[in-house]
């Protein structure tokens, strides 16, 4: 009579392992550049070709650098959240990679522009220096001009809370940041 219960027990045991197995998959991939200074780059601005977005632009502030393109479908998922963060006062700079200027400008006009400015990188040369392999990717840069964190795949409120906020609070610490409260810092 007990032999009929055996299959159920085997199944239950297997399921137990599966549940554990599912919890054990970290999906974040650190970058070689974490802790290192921002790479040297200089790109024309997307909106105003006479202006530049470069290493100098990012110095001395806590900011996000977001890699995007109109061809990047996944980027849509994070765009609204980025616009929200930008509205709260967080500086976000874009790296528009492998894109068409006209299409990119239309995109921003239609979906909203969260970027202080976007560097236009149609050949994808700057993103190689940033170690970018896919989009969307978002970097957190610190006051001292080093890269504090990199996130691949769309930015979500959960990722923001878990990975970015603690680092931002550290950076903003003593001098405080104007946007900190608005983005959930206090």
């Amino acid at each position, binding site marked *: 009579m007990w032999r009929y219960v055996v299959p159920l027990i085997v199944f239950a045991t297997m399921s137990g392992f599966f549940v554990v197995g599912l919890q054990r*998959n*970290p*999906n*974040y*991939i*650190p*970058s*070689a550049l*974490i802790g290192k200074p921002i790479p040297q780059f200089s790109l024309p601005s997307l909106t105003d070709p006479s202006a530049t977005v470069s290493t100098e632009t990012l110095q001395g502030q806590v900011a996000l650098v977001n890699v995007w393109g109109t061809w990047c479908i996944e980027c849509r998922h994070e765009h609204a959240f980025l616009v929200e963060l930008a509205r709260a006062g967080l500086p976000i700079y874009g790296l528009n990679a492998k894109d068409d200027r006209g299409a990119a400008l239309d995109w921003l006009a239609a979906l909203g522009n969260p970027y202080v400015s976007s560097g236009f990188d149609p050949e994808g040369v700057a993103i*190689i220096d940033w*170690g970018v*392999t*896919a989009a969307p990717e978002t970097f957190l840069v610190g006051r001292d001009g080093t890269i504090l964190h990199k996130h691949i795949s769309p930015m979500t409120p959960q990722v923001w809370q878990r990975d970015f906020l603690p680092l931002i609070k550290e950076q903003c610490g003593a001098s405080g940041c104007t946007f900190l409260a608005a983005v959930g810092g206090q």
Partner: protein
Amino acid sequence: MTPRRQRMMLIGLVLVGVVVSATLALRAFQENLVYFFSPTQVAGGEAPERAFRLGGMVVEKSVQREPGSLTVHFVLTDFANTVPVSYTGLLPDLFREGQGIVAIGQLQGETFVADEVLAKHDENYMPPEVAEAVAKARGAETQ
């Protein structure tokens, strides 16, 4: 021989057969378990003599082909340590610099000689085992 004895003998034979098969199976299993090591572990001398899997990111600008031969050299990293790898043969299509790959082979001296190089076929370009090794290496570094 009585039927009872026949049956006992049959059961006995079956049991012996099962034990022998199980032992052989387990031994074969052990021999064919391929363990995964990260560049940090290899640098730390943890890697075994026999074949194992080495995973990491292909370091940018590290891929070099021996002129006139099918041998290619590149460097794998988990952002804490690196291992030079050499492979003779055709590389998979998805192999490129900056990509996470897994190589299967043996350590010969300082170089990992790969028999097989695997790259993953979907939008996640780093095998989870490599990602975890990298995360561990990062954790060790910050401590």
